[in-house]
């Protein structure tokens, strides 16, 4: 595979990636920095493909280049709007980045760190076997035929379980900071309405497709959840709001169903097989699909709620 594409393609891509990151981080304009960061995510997806990691490429495309970009743009807009309404000096987004006085020293130390890292990488032994062998030996016992999904949902299922809890925790952190901000709405217009009406079902369909694919090919709950979240974010951007009667229990159930079901199955497996998350062999495939389906719903809902940036429940205004 590596021989089909000349090695200087990789060199060019690697250099381009570092260059984009440098431009994004040293840009004197915040919006430019964010656009460069999104472009950086796109190039990173290409790098994952070159490293034969299509699962990560999918996750990077959906999260790194998509959801993160939307999050950053919305946050920047809120900074801007506040600045604008306070009618203070408007230079916040375009002033040159302020640097600490010791930046030359930091640059020197960073360059030294890079040289040390590069030297270490160059002298690293090449004969470490990794865990690929171990995974492929046990793949038949996992209930799925795609190794990455087997690792995520079975062999190291507790990682994924805890990760779902981390997502919930981040959301709780945001909710504890107050309600989601009121967005001054601009009329959407026919084109945006048509676009979101057409694209939202397509995103739903693609999410289901990726979820289904996960058992045997690159795909799975995280990628599907992120695509689902993109659909929700698109609806929010087109002026759709969560109806008030759904913001309390229905929303909470949706957010928690994935982690809760995962936890229940983990406990059941503890009772049945004597070990946490050791699924019964015959049912493993079905359990994984069930966990993945609910996890997709929860991940999608949590990511959309993260994008809202606060508790959507109508209540008392911020103290």
């Amino acid at each position, binding site marked *: 595979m590596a021989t089909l594409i000349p090695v200087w*393609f990789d060199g060019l891509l690697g250099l381009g990636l570092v260059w984009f990151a440098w*431009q994004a981080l040293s840009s004197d304009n915040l919006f430019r920095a964010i656009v460069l960061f999104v*472009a950086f995510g796109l190039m990173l997806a290409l790098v994952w493909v070159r490293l034969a990691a299509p699962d990560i490429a999918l996750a990077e495309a959906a999260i790194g*280049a998509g959801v993160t970009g939307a999050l950053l743009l919305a946050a920047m807009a809120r900074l801007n709007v506040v600045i*604008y309404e306070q009618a203070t000096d408007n230079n916040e987004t375009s002033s040159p980045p302020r640097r600490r006085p010791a930046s030359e020293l930091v640059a020197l130390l960073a360059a030294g760190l890079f040289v040390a890292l590069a030297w270490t990488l160059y002298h690293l032994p090449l004969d470490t076997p990794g865990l690929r062998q171990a995974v492929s030996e046990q793949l038949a016992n996992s209930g799925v035929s795609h190794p990455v999904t087997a690792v995520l949902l079975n062999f190291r299922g507790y990682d994924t379980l805890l990760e779902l809890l981390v997502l919930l925790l981040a959301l709780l952190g945001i909710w504890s900071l107050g309600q989601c901000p009121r967005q001054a709405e601009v009329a959407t217009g026919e084109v*945006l309405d048509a676009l979101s009406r057409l694209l939202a079902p397509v995103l739903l369909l693609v999410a289901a497709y990726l979820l289904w694919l996960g058992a045997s*090919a690159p795909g799975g709950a995280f990628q599907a959840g992120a695509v689902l979240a993109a659909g929700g974010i698109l609806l929010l951007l*087109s002026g759709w709001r969560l109806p008030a009667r759904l913001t309390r229990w229905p929303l909470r159930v949706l957010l928690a169903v994935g982690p809760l079901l995962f936890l229940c199955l983990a406990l059941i497996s503890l009772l049945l097989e004597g070990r946490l998350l050791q699924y019964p062999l015959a049912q493993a495939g079905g359990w994984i699909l069930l966990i993945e389906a609910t996890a997709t719903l929860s991940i999608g809902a949590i990511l959309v709620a993260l994008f809202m940036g606060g508790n959507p429940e109508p209540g008392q205004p911020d103290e």
Partner: protein
Amino acid sequence: MALFYGFLLIFLLLNLLAGLWRIMRGPTGADRMLAAQLFGTTTVAMLVVMAQLQEQASLRNVALVIALLAAVTAVAFVRRAWPEKETSADAD
């Protein structure tokens, strides 16, 4: 044929890198966003070429996801980051 695909990929990558200039120059936010859109399309093209070359069908799914998510980012830009009233986001 493989060699041709290799050159096509490098050609598309060079195209992508050239687009950096428009992101740097601006002058308006829209110009930068347009360059990012072209990045998305070029990445989609590179991914489908790689899918053919490396015989990895899953890369077409990556291309599909990028095509969809690029649209969502662009809508986020128009709806949130580039409001109708003039703010400092445009000034360079």
